[in-house]
């Protein structure tokens, strides 16, 4: 347990350092974009937080499937932990998006397909967390949550494809199969930010799993004390 904790601590320090380097790259290394100016720098962490939200919900999806197949509590713990982190990152996407849109589009929000589907995604996983808290009985809670986690994931590819399927105000993807619409410095900054946030997600997930395991242990000890 202690060894696991020291690994988490080391990862935490590594992530903190990477976050500082990422900030340096975003504000100093990356050049200023010609049309939007400095506000375009919002792009790097906005994309990184969106990536983390997708990753977190993908983990919920996979862990929910594993739980339904095996019935093992360990997959349910990872799914619950990842959903909470995913909701946090989706909230940050929904906050940084309008902060970028206001100076560029002149409005905070528009019912564009990408924005709307992202908001729906946020509601789906908030509902997932509410459902977990509302259902009584660990097994029933895990089963309901797993089914919800699998169905809810359907919205993730819809969010991703929304800019291709519907015409809207949200910009197209900058990295596509036909090429990369970024300068080399911008691309390096984006990749570094995404990698940093992926490590950050891993760190937060380990922390959150540790909380859930401890809560389980407390539950077992209380049960044992009651039966003694």
């Amino acid at each position, binding site marked *: 347990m202690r060894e696991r904790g020291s690994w988490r601590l080391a990862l*935490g320090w590594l992530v903190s350092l990477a976050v500082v380097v990422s*900030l340096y790259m*975003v504000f100093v290394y990356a050049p200023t974009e010609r049309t939007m*100016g*400095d*506000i375009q*720098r*919002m792009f790097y*962490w*906005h994309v990184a*937080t969106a990536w983390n939200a997708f990753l977190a919900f993908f983990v919920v999806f996979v862990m929910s499937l594993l739980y339904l197949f095996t019935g093992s509590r360990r997959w349910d713990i990872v799914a619950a932990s990842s959903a909470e982190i995913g909701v*946090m990152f989706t*909230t*940050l996407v929904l*906050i*940084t998006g309008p*902060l*970028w849109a*206001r*100076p560029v589009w002149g409005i905070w929000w528009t019912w564009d397909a990408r924005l709307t589907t992202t908001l729906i995604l946020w509601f789906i996983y908030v509902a997932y967390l509410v459902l977990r808290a509302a259902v009584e009985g660990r097994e029933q809670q895990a089963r309901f949550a797993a089914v919800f986690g699998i169905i809810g994931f359907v919205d993730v590819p819809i969010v991703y494809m929304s800019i291709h399927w519907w015409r809207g105000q949200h910009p197209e993807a900058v990295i596509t199969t036909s090429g990369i619409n970024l300068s080399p410095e911008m691309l390096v900054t984006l990749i570094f930010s995404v990698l940093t946030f992926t490590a*950050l997600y891993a760190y*937060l997930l380990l*922390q*959150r799993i*540790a*909380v859930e395991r*401890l*809560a389980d*242990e*407390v539950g077992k*000890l*209380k049960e*044992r*004390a009651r039966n*003694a």
Partner: protein
Amino acid sequence: MDGNLIYLFVGYSLIWVALLVYNQSLVRRQLKLEREVEALKRVSRPQ
């Protein structure tokens, strides 16, 4: 640097604060549960 810097500053600050607060809440929850585990183990230990 242009006049839209306030939006940029608010955006990055919010991400920082949210991550710090969330991480702190996880650490606090862990410490509280660890103390609870210790207390329950002490109580259930045979005298």
